[in-house]
């Protein structure tokens, strides 16, 4: 479980996050949603320590990450896996080397065992026969899947995904969503996903937090979203004319 308490963050005097308090539960796919520039990515980066929060606490199972030393953070990060928006695969390494990379640095496994573990993770994300390819030779969806494989290779307790569907077609996006959801349930990890894709929200969002202009505006389940009377959330969820028509039809029928 991850608890965020009264988190504040500003850049050059501009407040980007203000008094965010939220709990991300274990074994669930927790989604942070909001418009572009609302502060979703900054919130995620503050949680994992890539940005320093100005104030507040981030507690990973009773361990306050914000107050930890550099070494303490390094140790805790070994329990985290993160999938970045663009994949962030190492260009100079092949797919297999990318997945093995964390094992090389933090385990004493023999090489064959590391390869086996990497292959298990690549199979888990439905990738076969790509071990020797380099990131430049992969499609966007494949890069994201390799990034997920690398994120789970060390059996993390916490998984973070920043915009996992950006730049993907709806069908591939669905595959990635299902994968994240399956991994979360199979390994019972705390997953936090940053997205503005409403398909993802409705597919995998077991807990949804809506951020608007740096404030936590709403939180609930995907089922509760449709019935919410939160003005900002409705503006975001029913932004397209198509969605607005569906909502009006649904309300007429009911």
């Amino acid at each position, binding site marked *: 479980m991850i608890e965020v308490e009264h988190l504040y963050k500003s850049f050059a005097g501009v407040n980007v996050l203000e008094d965010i308090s939220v709990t991300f539960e274990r074994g669930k796919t927790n989604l942070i949603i909001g418009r572009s520039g609302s502060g979703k990515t900054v919130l995620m*980066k503050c949680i*994992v*320590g*890539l940005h320093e929060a100005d104030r507040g606490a981030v507690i990973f199972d009773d361990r306050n990450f914000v107050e930890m030393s550099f070494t303490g953070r*390094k*140790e*805790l*990060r*070994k329990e*985290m*896996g*993160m999938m*970045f*928006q*663009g994949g*962030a*695969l*190492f*260009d100079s390494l092949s797919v297999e080397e990318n997945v093995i*990379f*964390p094992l*090389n*640095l*933090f385990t004493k496994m023999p090489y064959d065992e590391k390869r086996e573990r990497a292959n298990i993770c690549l199979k888990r994300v439905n990738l076969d026969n790509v071990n020797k390819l380099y990131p430049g030779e992969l499609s966007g969806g494949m890069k994201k899947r390799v990034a997920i494989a690398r994120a789970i290779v*060390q059996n993390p307790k916490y998984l*973070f995904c920043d915009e996992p569907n950006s730049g993907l077609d709806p069908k591939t996006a669905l595959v990635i969503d299902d994968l994240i959801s399956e991994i979360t349930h199979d390994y019972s990890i705390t997953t936090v996903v940053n997205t503005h894709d409403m398909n993802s929200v409705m597919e995998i969002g077991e807990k949804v937090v809506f951020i608007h202009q740096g404030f936590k505006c709403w939180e609930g389940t995907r089922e509760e979203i449709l019935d919410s009377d939160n003005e900002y959330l409705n503006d975001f969820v029913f932004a397209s004319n198509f969605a607005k028509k569906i909502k009006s039809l649904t309300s007429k029928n009911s």
Partner: protein
Amino acid sequence: MKNISAFGKYIIFITRVFSKPEKTKIYLQQTIREIESLGINSIGIVIIISIFIGAVITLQTRYNLESSWIPLYLIGLTARDTILLEFSSTMVGLILAGKVGSNIASEIGHMRITEQIDALEMMGINSASYLILPKILATMVFNPILTIISMVVGIFGGWMACIVTGALASSDYIYGIQYWFIPFYITYALVKTVVYAFIITSVTSFHGYYVQGGALEVGRCSTRGVVYSSILILLADVVLTQLMLA
């Protein structure tokens, strides 16, 4: 004020670079890779530049010392000392600041903007140390070898110029390059090379590591890294010359 702040940031950065490695074996492997990428791949350009500059130094010295009372072997001596004292360390250092420095700044900068550095941090790796320490070690170990290659090839280039143009008898040149040889000049050049290697790698890495934005900023940081490291090389040259030769 901005410069003082940048210097403080540089010191913190260097402290992180020299902190204890996660796994020494991996760092050694990385260092060997960097020796190939930053050192061995620079041998070609060092040889080409040294051979031509060695020839030019010899020819210019010859045409500027057109006097009957100056012994001709002094041309070989002058060319040798110019190559040993200044060209093979400082000039080659400046050339490497351009070639190796821009390569390092753009590589690290690209890794920063594509979140590869963030990915390393997320794995619990000290990214500054993992990426930069092997580069610093590789250049500090291999650049002295490049300097020695440059010395040998530069002196050879001067001899070739004598043969090809007939500006000076081969025997005079060979006598000149052996005359009044001071071995400490080699030590002096190698010490300078090691200091320059540290400057080139750390300064350009620093600029790449903290880049923000996109491809345009990576290009700018690369240029800035090369300019700053070149200025620092010249400054270090003055300081080390005063310390070691005065």
